[in-house]
């Protein structure tokens, strides 16, 4: 065998995936319409969220049921700093709507979400498993309830009505909410967002891969596998756990900011417990701790409801002549069945992480320590 062949094949595979990802929005847009490109955009947001949660749950083994709170923090921070809400609510303080550059607001949201991650992590360091899950669940609900009720005495979040008129993402002076004329062709807004989200998702994947295969990634897995042994190996478990919480929350904050700019509207409804569970399911279903598996899980679970919405009603109409089961109900049913099946048949997830191998030229003599 030619030793170059596997490497070449890998490069070829990457190139093919790259081309497929590049033409995807045009193919999807032409075949199914632009609403499906929008669905793909959301799938990318979920991939980012799931990868962030994967650092906490998959790598470090800390069961976090309130992860969506960081998404909410990122989204609301972006919303407050990119909409007229603050100026309307506090005319005495803000003369006009804050007009901060997009590239400042997005990292700021990520940073604040990361701080919230550390804030949640710090008091829960000694908790594990079920106990940690309950505390994080409570934290997630606290954030949501705050958002829901902080319209009095000071109208900070506008309560259940949410915040609207949020400025879109803006790159090189062009607002992504408007189509772009390029070489006479018109690229729709959802496609622009697709490329933007894709670029950031690739960045998140890159960061995750690099972290996984590093001193820190090993420390996280060590804590997951046996915390006492990890401490005895000299790992400062407090710092390493806080880092996992902080980084995971940062990714959640980025996704939240993107979500707010993309939707133009945020309300507490988007950040309920069910969303947390959904993101956790993406991680578990795909394969905890395996980046590729988590991406697969996120894409599948993000697309499933839309596919059902699109296909279930016509299918039932054709089979029974009526629509006995509402597609929304069917979604939850199928979702439950899928989870049970995965747990029964592939308990490690659809695409579990394989043991990484590291071949290294070994020194000849056995001199140590």
């Amino acid at each position: 065998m030619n030793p170059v062949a596997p490497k070449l094949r890998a490069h070829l595979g990457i190139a093919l995936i790259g081309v497929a990802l590049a033409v995807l929005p045009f193919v999807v847009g032409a075949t199914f319409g632009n609403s499906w490109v929008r669905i793909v955009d959301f799938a990318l947001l979920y991939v980012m969220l799931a990868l962030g949660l994967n650092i906490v749950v998959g790598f470090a083994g800390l069961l976090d049921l309130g992860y969506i709170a960081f998404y909410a923090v990122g989204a609301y921070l972006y919303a407050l700093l990119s909409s007229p809400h603050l100026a309307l609510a506090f005319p005495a303080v803000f003369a006009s709507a804050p007009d901060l550059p997009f590239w400042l607001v997005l990292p700021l949201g990520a940073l604040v979400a990361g701080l919230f991650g550390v804030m949640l992590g710090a008091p829960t360091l000694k908790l594990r498993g079920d106990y940690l899950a309950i505390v994080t669940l409570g934290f997630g609900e606290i954030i949501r309830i705050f958002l829901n009720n902080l319209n009095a005495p000071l109208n900070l979040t506008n309560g259940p009505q949410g915040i609207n008129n949020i400025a879109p993402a803006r790159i090189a002076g062009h607002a992504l909410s408007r189509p772009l004329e390029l070489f006479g062709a018109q690229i729709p807004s959802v496609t622009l967002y697709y490329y933007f989200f894709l670029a950031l998702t690739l960045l998140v994947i890159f960061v995750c891969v690099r972290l996984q295969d590093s001193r820190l990634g090993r420390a996280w897995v060590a804590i997951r596998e046996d915390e006492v042994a990890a401490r005895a190996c000299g790992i400062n478990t407090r710092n390493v756990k806080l880092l996992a919480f902080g980084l995971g929350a940062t990714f959640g904050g980025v996704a939240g900011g993107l979500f707010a700019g993309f939707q133009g509207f945020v309300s507490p409804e988007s950040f309920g417990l069910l969303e947390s569970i959904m993101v956790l399911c993406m991680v578990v279903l795909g394969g905890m701790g395996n980046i590729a598996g988590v991406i697969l899980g996120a894409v599948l679970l993000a697309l499933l409801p839309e596919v059902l919405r699109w296909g279930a009603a016509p299918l039932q109409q054709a089979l029974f002549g009526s629509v006995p089961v509402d597609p929304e109900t069917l979604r939850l049913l199928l979702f439950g069945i899928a989870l049970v099946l995965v747990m029964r048949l592939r308990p490690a997830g659809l695409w579990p992480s394989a043991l990484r191998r590291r071949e290294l030229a070994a020194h000849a003599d056995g001199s140590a320590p």
Partner: protein
Amino acid sequence: MSDDVLLAARGISKRFGGVQALHAVSLTIRRGEVYGLIGPNGAGKTSFFNVLTGLYSADEGSVTFGGATLALGAPHRIVGAGISRTFQNIRLFGAMSALENVMVGRHIRLRTGVIGAILRTPAARAEEADTAARAHELLRYVGIDRLANQQATHLSYGDQRRLEIARALATGPRLLALDEPAAGMNATETAGLRALVEKMRDDGLTVLLIEHDVKLVMGLCDRVAVLDYGEKIAEDVPDVVRRDPRVITAYLGTEAV
């Protein structure tokens, strides 16, 4: 004489509720020796171990190591100072390969942070390659390099013990503390373990050994301390300890004397 003292524990006491697990235990370990800590079940051997390695904090007492006071209760600082340990019931990182287990042991000697890991700077890359090479070297030292890419849980019992020792060695210790390393081993595996401990001593490592296998302890250790009900009742060379009436009483009861 005080020059060759590596570790000196003074008046270590530890209570769990009403149980006095350790009562003012003092002992000294000299550089380059194999020091045995024995005693009947429940004598406080493992409690002492856990205090020494920072998993428990002591109620009273202090430990100096290499001339400096140890920060009891902070395992990562104790490992950093140069004490590392294994566990009575083997505690490996099951889902990782043998090699990765040893690489985790290097953690405290490495410097790569988040930024370095993400950018994979030349320094981070060199450190990773060095870590893997060092891990291979240690696996070869304990005799299981051929199993480097095996998942830790798939190793045989004796090999898991060796892997745990390799992981402990990876932290770069001056004192290696082994908690009942021969527990559950057959005669061949015990002989292999003994040879390994002797090799480590010959290479200049100080070893603290908790063990039930009295034959192994008496044959291997340079000095032995005996704990009974949380108190040290003897500390000397094996031949003297063996004849100490208090030790015989502790092990066999008063009738036997």
